[in-house]
């Protein structure tokens, strides 16, 4: 059982990492979610074997029969935090969509200016995006900002 959980955690980590390296925020959000699931699964697995629920009903049995409650509590806390931040990331993605009609994570403008400096000494023209994959969605009439 533990081996299965470990394999699942590994797959989640791998898929999450791959999605994290994508350019679009929606994919990154899913990647973060998968990574978080992987980490939480690892946390639960770290508590050792599954056992009886650690709720005492008046009779105290052998401690070895109960599962460890602490990692479960830790995982719950981590899940709540990941949930909140994921919601925030989605809101950020929506805001980016409102502004650019796109949720691509963009390059830093100052970095571009610095890297362009040795090529151009003249006044700085419009910054070339340098990436043909700007948006899946054409900016329609009436939407142009």
């Amino acid at each position: 059982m533990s081996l299965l959980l470990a394999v699942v955690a590994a797959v989640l980590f791998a898929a999450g990492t791959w999605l994290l390296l994508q350019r679009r925020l929606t994919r990154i959000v899913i990647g973060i979610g998968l990574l978080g699931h992987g980490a939480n699964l690892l946390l639960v697995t770290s508590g050792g074997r599954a056992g009886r629920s650690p709720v005492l009903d008046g009779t105290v049995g052998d401690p070895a029969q109960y599962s460890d409650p602490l990692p479960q509590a830790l995982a719950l806390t981590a899940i709540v935090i990941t949930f909140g931040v994921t919601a925030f990331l989605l809101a950020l993605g929506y805001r980016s969509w409102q502004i650019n009609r796109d949720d691509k994570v963009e390059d830093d403008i100052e970095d571009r200016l610095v890297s362009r400096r040795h090529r151009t000494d003249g006044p700085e023209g419009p910054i070339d995006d340098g990436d043909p994959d700007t948006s899946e969605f054409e900016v329609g009439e009436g939407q142009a900002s």
Partner: protein
Amino acid sequence: MNTPLLAVPVAAPILGAAITVLVGVRRELQRVVTVAVLSVMVVVAALLLARVDEHGHLVARAGGWTAPLGITLVVDRFAAIMLLVSTIVLLIVAVYAMGQAGEERERVSFHPLYLVLAAGVSTSFVTGDLFNLFVAFEMMLAASYVLITLGGRPDQVRAGMTYVVISLVASTLFITTLALLYAATGTVNMADLAIRLGEVDPALRHGFSVMLLIVFGIKAGLFPLFFWLPDSYPTAPGPVTAIFAGLLTKVGVYAIVRTQTLMFPPGRGGADWGDDLLLWVAGATMVVGVIGAIAQDDMKRILAFHIISQIGYMIMGLGLFTVAGVAAAVFYVIHHIVVKTALFLVAGLVDRRAGTARLSSVGGLVRTAPVIAALFAVPALSLAGLPPFSGFLAKFSLTDAGLASSSHAIVAVGLAVGLFTLFSMTKIWTGVFWGDPDTAPERAPQTGDRFGGPLPMVLATLCLVVVSVGFSLWAGPIHELSQRAAVDLLDSTGYIEAVLGGAAP
């Protein structure tokens, strides 16, 4: 020694945040609550420091559960020093923010977020539990995510994305490390971990040491994990950038110092390669940060790159792993919190006065706004390490410690980087305060104020500059205090006994 006073730095700002939410749109009341809460925290932090210095470690057990079962709050000298300096800085920056027309006035959420950030920072300093440290980090980060994107401008959204994603990756790594640590040792209490890690396979222990170094290194901006920092910090509003620059990276440094000294001391189990690793990382961080700063044209971005290079000095002090080295690192951290925050507050003043912080669009402020020029000159010279300012004393003690443990290479790197720092400060000085602007600023300059800005902003900046000068005036006592803190840090038995008490096996 057991004291309930320790709960104040954790509970007070959270309660304050709740009250500022309830007070809502009544901005005056929000301000009163924020200033009152932060003032109480400063007083409590000062009391804690005085008590810790007299009696040794202070411990509070949440809910009465003894360690390692419950969450323990523990303060040693280093934590108390950090708590005092950071609460002072938080209070001063809050006043500065109130003087600035902008986010604080327009957004109801500024005060609650600011207080949650304060709670996260102070909880990170007082907690003795690794998972609680994770929660404190998340509190601080969640508040910082919203603060950095407050206003929702396009550049903020862009910078916010990078910042949030990078921080989330660090948090996920943190949970992963916690899971592995729990699987290996069965505890997340730091003092208990310190004991049980001694029984773990050395190879595994090295792995844990490096994993925690990476987790906190992302937060602190260590080489090669720093790249997100100069992109995201400068886009936030002035006071927010100042508090991020001054405190957030230093919380990462605090966590590195705490975990590496407590849980992975070099003597036990021979983690000697770890020291060298830290020195290499420190050297690379210094050099890359300072070279990155040279290429920039924006005052805030130059300063942001300098955060990175200065972090290298602190890690160098830790990497030496001698009392003198760690003491120098402690002194360096508190000096840097104050000086860097002051510099970013000045950058905010320049931004407001000239309409931009771009060097090519500002000029001649030494004639038109001499107060700002004076407020910049002192912390800038201090950062570059010129005598008699606190930066000189911090660099001197660090160099002294490096030579004493005959680590000549890292000392040479540190001194060379100091020269480049001076070059960058000179570049800002000539660009902003001398000469004439080449291009027009992005926004209209605001030239109406007599002292170069609204009085609360100028006075708050002045306060921080005075504090940094105070560091060099009382350098003797402060250095002795950091020496005692370093002795505490390097000999972890006091910490472990204070936390585990009679319950220690």
